[in-house]
């Protein structure tokens, strides 16, 4: 059973809480999230816009904006990385963990060739100085991500490549320090559907080949089902359900997860209209006590406003809902 494969934990979030200090108040982006990613495992963070899923990814990659405050722990191989500074930080950021972003056309500096930008990262992280060696490594990486003409790509400027090619190139850059954990922040959202499948296949293949762990952030449950071993559902900064792909998709427990699955359009469904969940996310500046989904939930009870217990219903399948409280 995935998740119970006994692999060593690579990343462990313990009561991770992230707040943004803004002019209009404190935004509670992530609240008390605990999660484990093991070796060779890929975990999906699923949630709608504003659920805090990207914030978690950025926090792990040490890329939060300066107005964010992190409490709780982010343990990478048992070491709390939230406290890292100086040399220890540079041995972690971009080396142990790297990240792929949503918009491939914006992740490269428009003024330099792909080769120059890859070269910077390779020289920085692998300590390679020799130009030929850097070039060889770059070509190797570009070939690994399935780019047909690596020599040409190296000499190209970002605007000369298509979105799909750029996303492949940015995966190559992310892989160049030989990371242990790859964070993919909606890597297929900006691509068209045929490319999405290709990129997802590529990521799955690379993960197997290189023995990577992956934190995959998406709002698309279909994508999650495709690439992940485990799914963690976030709602308004809270972890509401977590379990293996089979558990969460075939046997969803939290009312929010169920509603979310009902919203996935199906080709052979009789209903013509797209389903949606009425209401909106609660104001992240004043999150309601208890279950954040309560105002939109059909099954809400009085206790929902008071508490949100995370219970392990079955081994490896946790859900935060009073319904399952025993």
């Amino acid at each position, binding site marked *: 059973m995935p998740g119970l494969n006994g692999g060593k934990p690579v990343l462990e979030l313990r009561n991770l809480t992230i707040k943004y200090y803004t002019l209009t108040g404190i935004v509670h982006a992530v609240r008390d999230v605990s999660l484990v990613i093991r070796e060779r495992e890929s975990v999906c963070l699923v949630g709608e816009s504003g659920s805090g899923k990207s914030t978690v990814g950025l926090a792990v*990659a*040490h*890329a939060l904006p*300066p107005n964010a405050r992190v409490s709780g722990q982010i343990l990478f191989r048992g070491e709390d990385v939230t406290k890292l500074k100086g040399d220890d930080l*540079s041995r972690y*950021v*971009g*080396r142990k963990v*790297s*990240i792929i*972003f*949503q*918009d491939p056309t*914006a*992740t*490269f*500096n*428009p*003024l*330099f060739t792909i080769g120059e930008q890859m070269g*910077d*990262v390779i020289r*920085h*992280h692998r300590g390679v100085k020799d130009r030929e060696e850097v070039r060889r490594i770059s070509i190797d990486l570009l070939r690994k991500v399935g780019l047909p003409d690596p020599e040409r790509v190296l000499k190209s*400027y970002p*605007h*000369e490549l298509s979105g799909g090619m750029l996303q492949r190139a*940015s995966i190559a*850059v*992310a892989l160049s*320090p030989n990371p242990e954990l790859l964070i993919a922040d909606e890597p297929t959202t900006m691509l068209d559907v045929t490319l999405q499948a290709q990129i997802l296949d590529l990521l799955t293949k690379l993960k197997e080949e290189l023995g990577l762990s992956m934190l995959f952030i998406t709002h698309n449950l279909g994508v999650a089902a495709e690439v992940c071993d485990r799914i963690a559902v976030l709602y308004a900064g809270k972890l509401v359900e977590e379990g293996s792909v089979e558990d969460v998709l075939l046997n969803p427990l939290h009312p929010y997860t169920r509603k979310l699955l009902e919203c996935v359009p199906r080709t052979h469904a009789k209903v013509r209209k797209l389903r949606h969940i009425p209401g909106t996310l609660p104001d992240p500046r004043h999150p309601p006590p208890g279950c954040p989904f309560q105002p939109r939930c059909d099954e809400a009870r009085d206790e929902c406003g008071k508490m949100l217990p995370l219970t392990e219903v079955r081994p490896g399948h946790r859900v935060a809902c009073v319904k399952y409280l025993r």
Partner: protein
Amino acid sequence: MSSSSELRIMFRLIRRNPVSMLGLVIVVTFVIVGLIAPYILTRPEEAWGIAYNVKDRFLPPSLQHPFGTDEYGRDMFNRVLLGTRFSLMIAVGVVGLALLIGIPIGLVAGYVGGKVGTALMRVTDMFLAFPPLLLAIALAATLGRGLTNTIVALAISWWPWYARLIFVQVNSIKSLPYVDAAKVMGLGSLTIMFKHILPNALTPITVQAALDMGSAILEAAGLSFLGVGVPPPTPEWGLLVSMGWQSINRAWWISFFPGLAIVVTVLGFNLLADAVREAMDPRLRKALIMKGV
């Protein structure tokens, strides 16, 4: 899109527009004359102001003296020609020095932000609070007359604009995904500042600098005219205008030709700067290319 092909596209765009072309021709002529002026003078002693020819004073423009002669009988054409060199030095010196001060301050203030950024930008604001010409006059008067002092005085009253411009650009660029990506890949702050932010922040400042070349000449002429710039008998254009001032009723040409030189040069830089701005605006450029450049 190497920078050489960038330049070629820019040149093609300029060539299509006669007005831009005029600007380019004026600026190129100005630079060339500025560089070779001392070697093509027909009366170098008179041009440098070390020789007098009192019997030929106040001669109107003629074939022998195309711009006439001044109160000491010096040939104005040679004086104006040599003045080009001083104006070129002033234009390049003032803008160059101001960029050298303004860019690092704006870059660091924008990238580092926080207390350091605030401190740097408040200092910049203090300089901006003075009317620039007044500040330049005060500085030039304090430093004393001379070419270097004039350049320094103008540059000190000038750099805050560049610092502001770069600061604003850096602020918007530093939150772009490719900067985040570089940070997340663990690249150092210096690499990020000089490779990922600065080159992308230079477009507006390039245009501004091109425009300012003309303004620098104008302001330096202003300082000389007021008597706090370059000392006589240097044939700096502003100084030539001011020298002719007393005898404007008798000999209009003494002030007129140096003044004309200032006007034409400033106009040239303005036209060229406009063309550069158009050529660097991707949307405008696309429209122009569609028309078949």
